[in-house]
C-alpha cells in the first residue's frame, strides 16, 4: 500500500465518526424535520455514484483504445463502487422521499435514470463474472453505455418537471447546513479514493498471480 494510505484511512474514519455530530447540530429543515438529515449522506453518496460511473466509463474507453490492463483494473474497481454508492443512494433516497413526497418511489426522470445506471453497473459485473475469457473487453463496451447515462442523470432535474430537488439547491443552502454537507462530501470522497486504491491494487495483484500461474503451466 502507498505510504499515504493508512493516514488517509485514519482521517476517513475520524471524518465519518465526526459527521453525525455535525449533522445533529445542523438546523432542522422547516417542512421535513428530522428526516431531511438523510440528505447529508444521500447527496454525497449520489455524487460518488456518478463519479464512479464516470471513472468506470473513462477507464473503459482508455482500455479499449490502448489495451493497457491497468485501465481495466480501474474500470472494474469503479464499477464495484458504482454498485456500492448507487445502492446507498437508492436506499437513502426513498427514506427521505417517504416523508417528503409521501411515497417511497416515483418513476421520475432522476430516479429512473439513476436506477438504470445502477442496473448497468450490475450488468457490467455480471458480464465480467459469467462472460468467460475475454469478457473484460466486452464489459468495457457496456461501461461506455453506462457512462452515457451520467450527464442525463445530472441534468434531468433541470430539464424535466420533477419532484426531485434541482441541482441549484446546494449553492443556496445556508452555511449552517452547507458546512456539514461539504464535510460529508469530503468524507465520502476520501472513502472513494481509499476503496479505489485498495481495489485497483487487489486486482493488479490478482492479475500478476494469474500471469504467474500461466507461466508455471507452460
Amino acid at each position, binding site marked *: 500500500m502507498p505510504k499515504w494510505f493508512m493516514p488517509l484511512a485514519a482521517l476517513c474514519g475520524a471524518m465519518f465518526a465526526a459527521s453525525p455530530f455535525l449533522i445533529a447540530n445542523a438546523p432542522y429543515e422547516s417542512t421535513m424535520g428530522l428526516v431531511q438529515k438523510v440528505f447529508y449522506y444521500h447527496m454525497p453518496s449520489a455524487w460518488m455514484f456518478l463519479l464512479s460511473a464516470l471513472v468506470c466509463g473513462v477507464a473503459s474507453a482508455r482500455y479499449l483504445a490502448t489495451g493497457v490492463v491497468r485501465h481495466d483494473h480501474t474500470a472494474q474497481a469503479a464499477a464495484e463502487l458504482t454498485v456500492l454508492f448507487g445502492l446507498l443512494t437508492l436506499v437513502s433516497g426513498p427514506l427521505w422521499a417517504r416523508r417528503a413526497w409521501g411515497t417511497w418511489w416515483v418513476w421520475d426522470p432522476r430516479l*429512473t435514470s439513476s436506477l*438504470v445506471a445502477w442496473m448497468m453497473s450490475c450488468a457490467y459485473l*455480471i458480464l465480467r463474472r459469467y462472460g468467460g475469457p475475454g469478457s473484460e473487453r*466486452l464489459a468495457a463496451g457496456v461501461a461506455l453505455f453506462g457512462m452515457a447515462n451520467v450527464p442525463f442523470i445530472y441534468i434531468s432535474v433541470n430539464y424535466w418537471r420533477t419532484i426531485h430537488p434541482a441541482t441549484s439547491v446546494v449553492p443556496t443552502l445556508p452555511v449552517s447546513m452547507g458546512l456539514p454537507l461539504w464535510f460529508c462530501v469530503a468524507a465520502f470522497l476520501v472513502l472513494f479514493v481509499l476503496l479505489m486504491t485498495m481495489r485497483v491494487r487487489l486486482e493488479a495483484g490478482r492479475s500478476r498471480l494469474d500471469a504467474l500461474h500461466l507461466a508455471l503451466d507452460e
Partner: protein
Amino acid sequence: MPGFVSTVRHIVRKDCTVEFRSREIAYTTIFFAVSCVLTFAFALVREGRAPEGAGEGILWATVTFAGTLALGRTFERERQAETLRALLLAPVPRSAVYVGKLVGIVTLLFGMELLLVPLISLLFGAPLLRHPIWLAATLLSGTVGFAAVGTLFAAMLVRARSRDVLLPVLLYPAVVPVLIAGVRGTSSLTAPEFDWLIARFWLALLFAFDIVFVTLALWTFEPVMSD
C-alpha cells in the same frame, strides 16, 4: 477494398438472401411476438376492456422481447456457420459490418411492428393508427435505438459464455431510456387531444438517443470485436 456503402449493401443483401431462403428468424420472431401480445391480452383484458394506455406499453414490451430473440438468433446463426469470423477477417471497415447487421435487424423488427400495430389496436382497443406517419417515425427511431445497442451487444457476446442469458441482462438496462421515450411518444399519439409539440419532443429525444447509441456502438464495435 470495397467502400463503406458497398459493404453495408452486400451484408444486408447477404442477410436478406439467407433469411429469405430459410425464413427461420422472421417466422420465429413474429410467432413469438404474437404469442407475447396474446399472453398480455389474456392477462390484462377483462370483459373486452384493457387498462387505459396498456396497448402502447405492450407494443414496446413486445418489440423488446421479440427483438432480443431476433438478435440472439441472428448472431447464433453467424456463430454456427463461422460467418461472423469470415466477415471480420474480410478487408472491409468493421463499422460497415456493424451498420450492415444493424440495417438488417431494423428492417426485420420494423416489418414485425407493422404486423403488431393492427393486432394490438384490435385486441386492446388502442387507437394506434390515429396518426400513422408520426407512429411510423416514432417506431422507426425507437427501433434504431434499440437495435443499435442490441446489435453491438449480441455481436460481442457471440463468443461469451452464457450468452443467451447475458444478452437481456445487458441490453434491457441500456435500452430503458429508448423504451420510456417510445412508450411516452406513442401514448402522446393516442391521446384524445393530439399535441404535436409533445409528440415532436419525444421523437426528438428518440433521435438524440439514436445518435448517441449509434456513435458509441460504431466506436466500440472495432475494439471489442478485434480479439
